[in-house]
């Protein structure tokens, strides 16, 4: 985090608008932020420098984690993110998913109505965005929190950031499958969503099992699987009906 970018030349692309106006000032202001943080812990909540440690990833690291979320069987996701869990995936995958299911859901609904009744015209239902945002953000923020508290209560140590990271990356499959769900054949849609939901749910469940490492909490693992499948079915039924 402290690798200073003031050594990098500002971009001299022709016609570009360089963003860094006073490079020499920002390292000192960063240090002030760190000093402040060490003296008063509560102030760290409102300072950006205390959250940059969760976004300390490069493009290739994020791509690597995205690809590994598509392989549900391997079960080594936690070992991959152990040194450097990131919240970038959580924020932007869930935002992309919200937008994807709201927009593609509208397209899919239109196409389905078009098949049954050739005279329907395109309408855009803006409430899809509201429902999508509430449900996806709610799910991906609250479920890992609940599991964190549950596992703390049951005695095994858990890390909230890693749980958020896991659930965030598990939503990537839904983005890909929502593109396929536009195809207006009901049987095909159910197949796609069950496959995608199953892959995502087993990704979550298997990684959780390898992380927890105790045999008497299989109910926790199973409930994670069921919840993820529930999310998949909800997406199908509300947005791609």
């Amino acid at each position: 985090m402290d690798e200073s970018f003031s050594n990098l030349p500002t971009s001299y692309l022709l016609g570009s608008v360089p963003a860094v106006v006073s490079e020499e000032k920002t390292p000192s202001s960063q240090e002030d932020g760190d000093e402040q943080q060490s003296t008063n812990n509560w102030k760290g909540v409102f300072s950006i420098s205390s959250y940059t440690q969760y976004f300390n990833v490069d493009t290739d690291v994020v791509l690597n984690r995205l690809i590994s979320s598509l392989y549900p069987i391997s079960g080594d996701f936690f070992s991959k993110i152990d040194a450097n869990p990131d919240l970038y995936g959580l924020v932007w995958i869930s935002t992309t998913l919200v937008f994807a299911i709201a927009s593609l859901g509208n397209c899919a609904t239109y196409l389905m109505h078009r098949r049954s009744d050739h005279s329907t015209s395109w309408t855009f239902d803006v409430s899809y965005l509201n429902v999508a945002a509430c449900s996806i953000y709610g799910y991906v923020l609250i479920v890992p929190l609940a599991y964190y508290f549950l596992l703390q209560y049951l005695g095994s140590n858990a890390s909230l950031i890693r749980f958020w990271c896991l659930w965030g990356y598990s939503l990537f499959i839904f983005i890909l499958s929502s593109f396929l769900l536009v195809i207006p054949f009901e049987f095909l849609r159910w197949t796609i969503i069950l496959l995608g939901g199953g892959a995502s749910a087993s990704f979550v469940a298997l990684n959780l099992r390898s992380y927890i490492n105790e045999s008497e909490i299989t109910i926790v693992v199973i409930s994670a699987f069921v919840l993820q499948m529930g999310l998949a079915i909800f997406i199908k039924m509300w947005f791609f009906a």
Partner: protein
Amino acid sequence: MSHSDTIPLHSTSQSDIDEIENLINSNPSSVLPARPPSPPRASIPISSAPIPPPAFIPSNLPAPTNPKTAPVPSVSSAAPKPPLPPRPSGPGGNISASGFGSPPNTLTEPVWDTVKRDLSRIVSNLKLVVFPNPFREDPGKALRDWDLWGPFFFIVFLGLTLSWSASVKKSEVFAVAFALLAAGAVILTLNVLLLGGHIIFFQSLSLLGYCLFPLDIGALICMLKDNVLVKVVVVAVTLAWSSWAAYPFMSSAVNPRRKALALYPVLLMYVSVGFLIIAID
């Protein structure tokens, strides 16, 4: 406390009136004495002003420093964008009702002057940001002269255009568009800051708002012409233009290894706005 060589002021003048008087003394040419706050009727000869001065003196003047210097990344998370009060123009600006030499007192000028100055700043920022000219002599000028009026107008205009185009749920469409753009600009800036980039919060808000201008034009055209194919073409062109305008700014703000991580959310926001423009019927 009143000096015999200057205009006699009321005896209940505050101490900073003395400071002002010193300024008046140092620049006796364009003097517009302001009336004291308490019950007034001091006999103040008004020198050359075309309009009467205001009826009170603000006790702390707006600091006559150039507001574009010394920016610090501010951390107000998810703050809504406030429209800023009009700023004094550069030193040497010759506003007709200027008070105290340099800088001119923007509180006493006519409203039309203020509006004209802000409009000209919006236009100049627009030209600098949205039409990047490779031979431009001062690439950083748009950054130093940032303001939030331009972005505010563009966002509200886009929301209104989308709302007019919609046939049902008009107010919800406006709310969604406005929230998406305003919160999106803030979140994009926070994203760059969190990735360890060097960016200044309000400069970034300002630039992202100005880069919305092509999409505004696209939305206006789509509102007037309702053919789907035309809409797709127009939105694609204006989307590419907006992204091209925003690209150099965002990509230079972060480490090159994280460039795609900073640019992807910008693309996502513009694509979602473009989709809203096409899809609103």
